[in-house]
């Protein structure tokens, strides 16, 4: 199915997820298993907020790229599963990678991010043109 042109994209769907396998695809940049982080995306009046779970990733391990309307999140987690004698395993440890296509309603120059307790928060401010505005009504004569 062809993607709609960016001009036709309604504001209600400004972030589109790219095709990403859910689990363990090879990722040439860091090596090892790579997982798609679980994300929440919320829209508020003046911005979209993206929350991504990246447990085990510290500030040095985060890379956020924005190029050609594509927002790419990388998280590099320290290996914690090497050389240990496992008794029981329910999850794999690896790095995180996920990409999103950002619509034209986001001001890419003002994107900012924080990392706290393994949760990456990315703020995607809307462009002035699409922010809701209060229209002053004056009495007419």
């Amino acid at each position, binding site marked *: 199915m062809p993607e709609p042109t960016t001009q036709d994209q309604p504001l*209600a*769907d400004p*972030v589109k*997820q790219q*095709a*990403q*396998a*859910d689990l363990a695809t090879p990722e040439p940049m860091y090596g090892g298993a790579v997982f*798609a982080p*679980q*994300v*929440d*995306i*919320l*829209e*508020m*009046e003046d911005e*979209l*907020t993206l*929350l991504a*779970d*990246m*447990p*085990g*990733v*510290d500030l040095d391990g985060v890379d956020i790229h924005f190029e050609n309307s594509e927002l790419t999140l990388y998280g590099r987690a320290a290996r*914690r*599963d090497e050389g*240990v*004698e*496992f*008794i*029981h*395993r*329910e*999850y794999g*440890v690896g790095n995180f990678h996920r990409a999103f296509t950002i619509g034209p309603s986001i001001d890419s120059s003002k994107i900012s991010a924080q990392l*706290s*307790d*393994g*949760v990456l928060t990315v703020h995607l401010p809307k462009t002035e043109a699409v922010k809701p505005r209060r229209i002053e009504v004056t009495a007419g004569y």
Partner: protein
Amino acid sequence: MALTRWRAFHDPLDDVNRLQEQMSRLFSRLGANDRAAAPAYPSLNLWQDGDYIYVESELPGLKLGDLEIVVTGGNQLSIKGHREPALPDNAVWHRQERGYGDFSRLVRLPIDVDADHVAATLKNGVLTIKLPKHAEAKPRKIAVTGG
């Protein structure tokens, strides 16, 4: 194209499913080869060395104060916690994949531990619980003497 489940609004059925999961995971037994078929939250990895058992779990967004970790009966480890949903005023959800709410898991450790000296750390959303093996459960070197 691999799509993640998309949910604009909170589905009340999820609460029912979550409860069912919580019930089914009560007293789940940990063994060497029973890779959990049923989803249990939080997922746990266990490993050991000569003196300790280590239990690790990925709990992004939580602080130690959000967790209650209890060892009872020498080998039963209980982990309870709560994750607050991100719910700013007037927000519209475009995607919601991260879980939130109350969770608890009770597991039986394969070896008795010293419940008085359990240490837990939470760093970058990764919980690590270090449990000293009970003296009687530690591996012992047996001196072999010539007869």
